[in-house]
Each structure stands twice: as C-alpha cells, then as structure tokens.
C-alpha cells in the first residue's frame, strides 16, 4: 500500500495511505505535484502542512479514516446554498466525534478542513458553529464564544442601525 508522510506545523509526522490522503483535495494535489517532480515513482511523498498543528491534523485524519468509503461530495452539490449537505452527511459517529470538542477546536477544524479541502468535515463543523449562533441573542453568543464586545462609543448602536436597513421584516 502506497503511503504518504503528512507533517504538521509543529513537526509531528503522520503516516497514512495515499488513498486516504487523496480524499483531501489539497493533499491530492500535493501528492500529484510530488509525483511529477520526483524521478523515482516508488519514493514516499512527504507533505508539510505549515498551517495545521498536530492535534488538529490528527482529528482531520481520524475523520477521513472514518469516512474513507463515503462518496466524495462534489463542491457544488446543492443548488442555492450548502445548507442541505451537512444534515445529509452527519452520522451518529460525527456527532460523537464533535461532542467533546470545545468551540476553539471546532473552529480550528473548520480552518483545517477549508485548507485541506475536505468538504464533508467542513460541512459538519460549520453547521455546529452555526447552531451555536442561530436563534441566540448577541449576549448569549458572546458568552458561548467567550468573547467581549470591543465596540467603541456608539459603534454597536450604529451597526444595529445599518442592519435594520437590510433585515427583512
């Protein structure tokens, strides 16, 4: 089985099958680039992902492993928006996978899934963040994300005013 070494920003190396790695659009491109530039077709590709740290990379690979036999979702499957996809793809395993994570990790996963082009993972993580926001008040959102308002003076009021213009009744 052809393998590939994927190295995180903090230097941890993961040895995975190329078949698995290729389910990430980014890794697929990287493997192909490596192939083209290498004389020896048997050489084991080594890919350094400078934007993802080990803890997050492990989670992405774990998710890929679980979903390795899913059909690959085309980028433009849904007509108007991507909202339907997440529900379709979310299994009990996914829910258990995400349940113990705090929001910081989920957000790092979003960035990683985006960077590595793993649509299914991007869908479920974004959906999770969305669920923490839709239907909540601004203060509840700030609490959930441990955020403080950094608006100065009447900026917050002005922002609401701008919004009022565009919100549908």
């Amino acid at each position: 089985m052809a393998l590939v070494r994927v190295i995180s920003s903090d230097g941890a190396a993961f040895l995975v099958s190329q078949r698995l790695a290729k389910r990430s659009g980014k890794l697929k491109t990287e493997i192909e680039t490596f192939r083209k530039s290498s004389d020896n077709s048997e050489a084991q590709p080594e890919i350094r992902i400078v934007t993802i740290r080990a803890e997050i990379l492990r989670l992405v690979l774990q998710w890929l492993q679980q979903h390795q036999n899913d059909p690959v979702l085309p980028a433009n499957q849904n007509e108007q928006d991507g909202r339907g996809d997440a529900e379709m793809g979310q299994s009990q395993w996914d829910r258990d996978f995400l349940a113990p994570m705090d929001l910081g990790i989920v957000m790092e996963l979003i960035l990683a899934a985006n960077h590595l082009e793993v649509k299914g993972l991007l869908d479920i993580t974004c959906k999770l963040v969305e669920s923490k926001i839709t239907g909540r008040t601004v203060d509840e959102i700030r609490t959930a994300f441990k955020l403080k308002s950094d608006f100065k003076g009447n900026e917050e009021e002005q922002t609401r005013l701008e919004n009022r213009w565009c919100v549908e009744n």
Partner: protein
Amino acid sequence: MESLNKMKRGKPFRSPKTTPILPPELWSHIFEFLGSEDLYPVTKTCVEWNELLEDNKNAFLLPVVLPSVMKYVKKNTILKFRTISSLTRNAVDKTLQSFSDSDDEDPFDRHCSHYEESSSKRYLRSVASSISCSYMFTLSDFGYLLDKVYPDLSVASSDVNPFLVRYISYFSDFRLGNDPHVLNILPKFGHHLLTLNCFIVGDSSTQPFHNIVAQLRLVPNIKRLWIRPQLWPRTPTDDELDLTGLSTTVYEFPALPKLVILDVRLVNSNVLLDTVVLAMLRHYSKQLICFTCDAKLFLLQELNVDVLNLMFPNVKKFHLLGKGSDFATGLEKLSNVSWPLERLHLEVHDGDQINPQNVISTISNFHENLEHLKVDCLLLPKQLEANNCNENEAEEKVVRKMSKLKIVRAKANILDSNLFCKFLKDNCPHLEELYIETSDILCRERGRWALDNLRNLEKVVLGSLKSLPVNFHTMRRPVPNETL
C-alpha cells in the same frame, strides 16, 4: 493577566526556545498587541504558544472562520454576526463586499464566469446582492425601508457609513420629481458610496439626466457609475423625448477622481448619446478603466478613431452591446483604435448574425494585451461566410497572433464558423480555457474538436447559464500515463 493566574493555579507555562528566551508572561503581553490574523498563526508555531493563547483563542478564531461559516447561515444571522464585535463585523463586511453585486472591478464576471462557481459562493453572492437591493431609493415600493431608518439617520453623524456594501440604487423619475430622502441623505452620507446605480424612469423628458448630473457632486468617491434607463414601459425614442432646453444646457460635472467604471449600456437614444453621454465622456473618459456602452455610440460621426484614442487611453475592459445592425460601425472603429484592452466582450442582443471576419479583425487589433474574450453573438454560417470571404479577399487584413489571450467564452455557434476556428487554432497559441454557451451540454463534439486542435487548451466547459441550477460539463485533456 490570564496566564499569570494560571501559573498561580500551579500549571506552569513553558517558553519556546527562542533567541533571546523570554518568560511566558512577557510573550503573553506581546500577544495582546496582535490582531486576529496575526494571533492565529502564533498558535500554530509551537505547543508552548498555543497553550499560552488557549484562553482567548475563541475571540480571534471567530472572525477568521466567519467567511467559511457564513455560507451555511441565513442572511439575518449573517447580519447578526456583525453585532458581536468589531472584528466579526469587519470580517462579515469584507466578505460581503467581495461578493457584492458590483463584483469588484469587473461588471462582466457576473454574467459569464460562474459555471464552475461553487454553490456556497453563489449563495453569498445572492446574499450580498439582496443586501444591495435594500438600498433602493425610490418613492414607490421600497420607500418604506428608508422610512424605517430615516429618523435615526437624521441624527447620526456623517462619519457613519449607513450603506453596508457601499452601494445604492437610485431611481430618478421625472414624474415624481426628486426623491426627498435622497436629497436629504446624499449630501450627508454620499461620500461613503463606492457604487451608484441610477435608474432613469421616464418616458418623455431628459430631466432625470439633468438631475443625475446635478447629484454627482454628492458622491465624490464613487468608483462605479451605472446609468440605465428603466425599460418600463420602454426606452423613449428620439421623437418622444422632450428636448426643451437640452441644446443649451451646460453640464457642470464635478471631479470624481476615483471613477474608473462607467456603464451606460442601456442608453441607446441618439439624442442622449450625442448630448449627455458625450459630455460625460469628455469629462471622465480618460480615467476610465472599464467602459460599457451601446454600439450606437460609435455611430456618432464625431467619435472617429483619433478621438477614441484620445478619449480612452486607459481602458482595459470594454463591453460593447446593441443591435446587430449597429455593430458593424462599432467593430470597424474598434479594429483601428489603439486601446490597451485586456478584456473584450461583444454582445449582440437581437438574433443578427455578424461577419466573423469583422469580429476577428477587431479582436486581433488588441493582440498585445487581450487576455479574456467573450463573444456573445451569432456569426454568419459557413455558406455565407465563404461568399463574404471571396468578396473581401482583396482587402483581407493581416491577422496577428494573440500573445496573451487565455480565456474565450462564446456561443456554441462560433465553432461552426471556419474562419473563427482557424483563428483560434492558428492565432491563439496561449488559449487555456474555452467556455461554450450551449443548451445541449452533452454535445461533446465541439469540445473534442477544441481539445484536439488547440495545443495549450486545458479545459472546455460546456454550459448553460440560462438554466438553474447552472448546468455545465467540463472536459479536460486526458493526462498521459496517469498512474492509479
């Protein structure tokens, strides 16, 4: 400081081996000066810094992930993101503005490049455009939106930008006079606008044009100006225009130093072109990078090749549209101007067929810089083409090699023209992408011809933008010796 508290709780922080080595609390202090974009990379640098920043990670991660998450939420929730913090507001605004209806500097991308656009991008584009539509200034249907916020605006400071995507549409309607809201709002907030989209409603007066010209001084920072007569009930003919005072009007155009995009595509009355539009061009044409007009403009005697060259020294993107019968003169003049065009879009809106020879000489006139071409018209079919060629053989022009042309979009019909196919094959050696507008996307024959004959072509996209969802099929050259 959060990190110090933690240390007291007995969980020691370590510092990475930097030169010089600083204690964690100093790093923590330094990080307080960094913004979201800078802090996120810090967490990935090493385990130690990631631990150090653990506590306020959410605060700087949220703005960074918002552009991804926005694709999954409804418009009102996107707007709610704006009220969480100034960082999230800036992230949302930046994303929306990049998808705003005005499409950065490229008015024709909206219509032609989205075959392969992902559903999420299309969704955000629709949100941005729905927000733009909220800023529709008219006394009729949309007036209530303005009434809703106007009381607040009248007390707001003029430094506040009330226009979310810095874009408004404004109806100048001669029947109703000027919208009083506009007259109140533009003087105070007009300087925030980047795009002004003027609809001219009216059937027998040139007054709306006067109004628009008079109001340009209220929007000194605009980059894009669209002026379009409202097609309802229809555009007035010259006979119907009330020309009282028109010939004696002296327009006072303000300086609009940032104006680079002008779109007067639907102004197709000879009288208006000859007066208002020409006066406007005399004032602003030299600064334009992007220009869209009706082919009738080129029928004006005054606009000969020399004048056109003087007028548009900087135009990089040009979109010509109109009736087929008006096109010949336009193409003739275009094939002799020396404009630094990078993008050209020719669009005939009736079914008239154009002589491919004329189209080719126009295109090849821009051989040095042209990168992107869209031919939205039908070309004469083969049989007629042959006849025309014989007639024109004597004055056959030298067709030059296109040194930069990479992308061509066209109706399927152009690949039925021998002349055009020959032009693509012999004169466009750098062509990489070919987009064919066709309702029959399974008709691969044309795509196969292109891949077989055009050396550097990477892909052919057969698609139809008329159907929703956008339906397309991409054909690529098979990669030789692909290993599994």
